[in-house]
């Protein structure tokens, strides 16, 4: 007869596991992937495939030959990092740059800290910022949206993003109205569904929100974190818009342009690098929102969410220490 097992309670276990969580995140990214393929064509698909493949490859190589440990690429975390990295680059990025970015993402930002669960910074963002600083020209010349089945326009047309236009215009002394009237500036609806230039994943706010709602329902992320980021950006931008509407654009422009939605929904909510407790998550979100809008309004870069998230990542351990969950039966000393 087989031996009985002895172990500590509990003797039943929930259905959740890491692979399922990663799959949920991938499913949640499907709408945004579809939109990017729709607007950037097969280039988008190429970028995503290269990114995912090289991230998984580097993870495999490092785990197998460098660390000589067990290989865990099947948990899906490398694939998620790969897709997120692809979401953060323009569709016409040369393959070798992407592969270099993937190496930084996996090799530097993830595996050097001990792999899944140990990285203090969001790996995809580290990869992205590395590429942004190393290849500034390629990383900031976005192809103009060119729907997949639309009649072929001449290739290799690039243009700035909405935020880039705004920044340039304001810096050149134009008023907001003048900038918004620029023919290159995408219209409101285009910004919502993603018919504009930009990185792969960031163009369609609608698709990203859809994925976010799916993740909230599947309890992979907490809604409080993205909402606190978005609300902070909205409120601060709104205050400045009320003070000086000719210099500061209306707040909804900030919400639906640039990487805010991508950052708030998929990047900041990264389990590993975000705080553990609810109050901490809200503080973290407010911090990201503040830094984002500060960089956008007064910084050198048109977009600041990547930097904002990375900076707040560094504060995560402090936030974890300072903001504890609400304890049951907490005795309030008077």
């Amino acid at each position, binding site marked *: 007869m087989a*031996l*009985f*097992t*002895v*172990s*500590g309670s509990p003797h039943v276990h929930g259905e959740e596991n890491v692979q399922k969580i990663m799959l949920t995140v991938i499913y949640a990214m499907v709408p945004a992937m579809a939109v990017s393929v729709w607007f950037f064509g097969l280039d988008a698909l190429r970028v995503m495939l290269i990114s995912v493949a090289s991230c998984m490859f580097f993870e495999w190589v490092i785990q197998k030959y460098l660390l000589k440990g067990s290989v865990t690429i099947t948990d899906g975390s490398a694939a998620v990092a790969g897709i997120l990295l692809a979401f953060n680059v323009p569709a016409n990025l040369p393959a070798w740059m992407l592969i270099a970015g993937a190496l930084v993402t996996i090799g530097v930002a993830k595996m050097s800290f001990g792999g899944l669960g140990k990285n203090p910074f969001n790996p995809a963002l580290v990869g992205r910022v590395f590429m942004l600083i190393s290849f500034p020209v390629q990383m900031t010349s976005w192809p103009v949206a060119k729907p997949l089945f639309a009649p072929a326009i001449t290739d290799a047309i690039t243009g700035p993003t909405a935020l880039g236009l705004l920044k340039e215009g304001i810096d050149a002394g134009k008023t907001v109205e003048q900038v918004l009237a620029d023919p290159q500036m995408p219209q409101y609806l285009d910004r919502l569904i993603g018919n504009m230039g930009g990185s792969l994943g960031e163009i369609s706010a609608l698709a990203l929100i859809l994925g976010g709602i799916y993740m909230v329902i599947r309890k992979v992320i907490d809604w409080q974190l993205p909402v606190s980021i978005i609300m902070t950006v909205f409120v601060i931008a709104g205050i400045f818009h009320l003070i000086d509407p000719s210099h500061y654009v209306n707040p909804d422009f900030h919400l639906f342009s640039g990487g805010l939605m991508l950052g708030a929904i998929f990047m900041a909510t990264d389990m590993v690098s975000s705080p553990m407790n609810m109050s901490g998550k809200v503080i973290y979100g407010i911090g990201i929102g503040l830094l984002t809008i500060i960089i956008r309004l007064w910084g050198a870069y048109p977009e600041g969410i990547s930097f904002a998230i990375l900076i707040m990542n560094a504060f995560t351990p402090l936030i974890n220490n300072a903001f504890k969950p609400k304890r049951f039966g907490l005795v309030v000393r008077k």
Partner: protein
Amino acid sequence: MNDILLFTILTLGILGTVLAVILYFVAQKFKVIEDPRIDLVEEVLPKANCGGCGYPGCRNFAEVSVNAANEKQSLEGLNCPVGGNDVMKQVAAILGLEVADQEPMIAVVRCNGSHVNSPARVKYDGPASCAFAHQLFAGEGGCQFGCLGLGDCVVSCDFDAIHMNPETGLPVVNDLCVACGACVKACPRGIIELRHKGKKDRRIFVSCVNKEKGGPARKNCQVACIGCSKCQQVCPYDAIVMANNLAYIDFAKCKLCRKCVEVCPTDAIHEINFPLRKPKAEPAPADPERVDSLHVAGNKENDIQSDSKA
């Protein structure tokens, strides 16, 4: 241009001077006067910071030693097990004292409940932590005193001196052991004991800590001490004490005569590094590996405790 240069040099210069003055006064104010011999003593200590001496680190031990030298003029009760007699002599020389030689010690695992001797009745499924498993259940083999085989002692060892033997599921101590006592503290069941290393590394000990009566003890493990006290009767030196159905050999009194080993009906008493006996009826082999090394003429290289397999 010159203005800027001048301004910079002046500011930094003044800043530097002011800070240097502050630093000087702070250093004066918080100066700690320390016996220079503490540093000297610390220098000769092994700096393993293992805590084997009973103090948190080598520095602390050095302080205590110097204090003891100042107050009592003796180093009695202070011993660095890692450094051994050599280091203690050096320490004593620095402090102008004498020390008596201490018998070198080694950690001894007093359980032989291998997979063969104490077959598993249940499977344990959980973290590899003896401390937790000890809380949870009696043990896979059913003996509530025996080794759990999850290696808390291995984790606790700073000297790479104790390893699990995967075949028996028991820890094995090797020559690197410095008797710091970390594993003794780590074992939740008190199986590991520090004993005299013995002449030529020869040791005799009861490899069991089971306090149950003979019947239940033997039911779980065929090499358990059943408390028959035969060894006590045969011992010419009064070195064996019986308590709670368990024999214990006092290593200070034991003269390594090996009489107890022969009479033990369950092979619970182990002899290590002794030359092979004259061929005689072999007692029922307990566990092939251990028996081999027990009866093989032992020199330091191929003794069981320095078994390099683990």
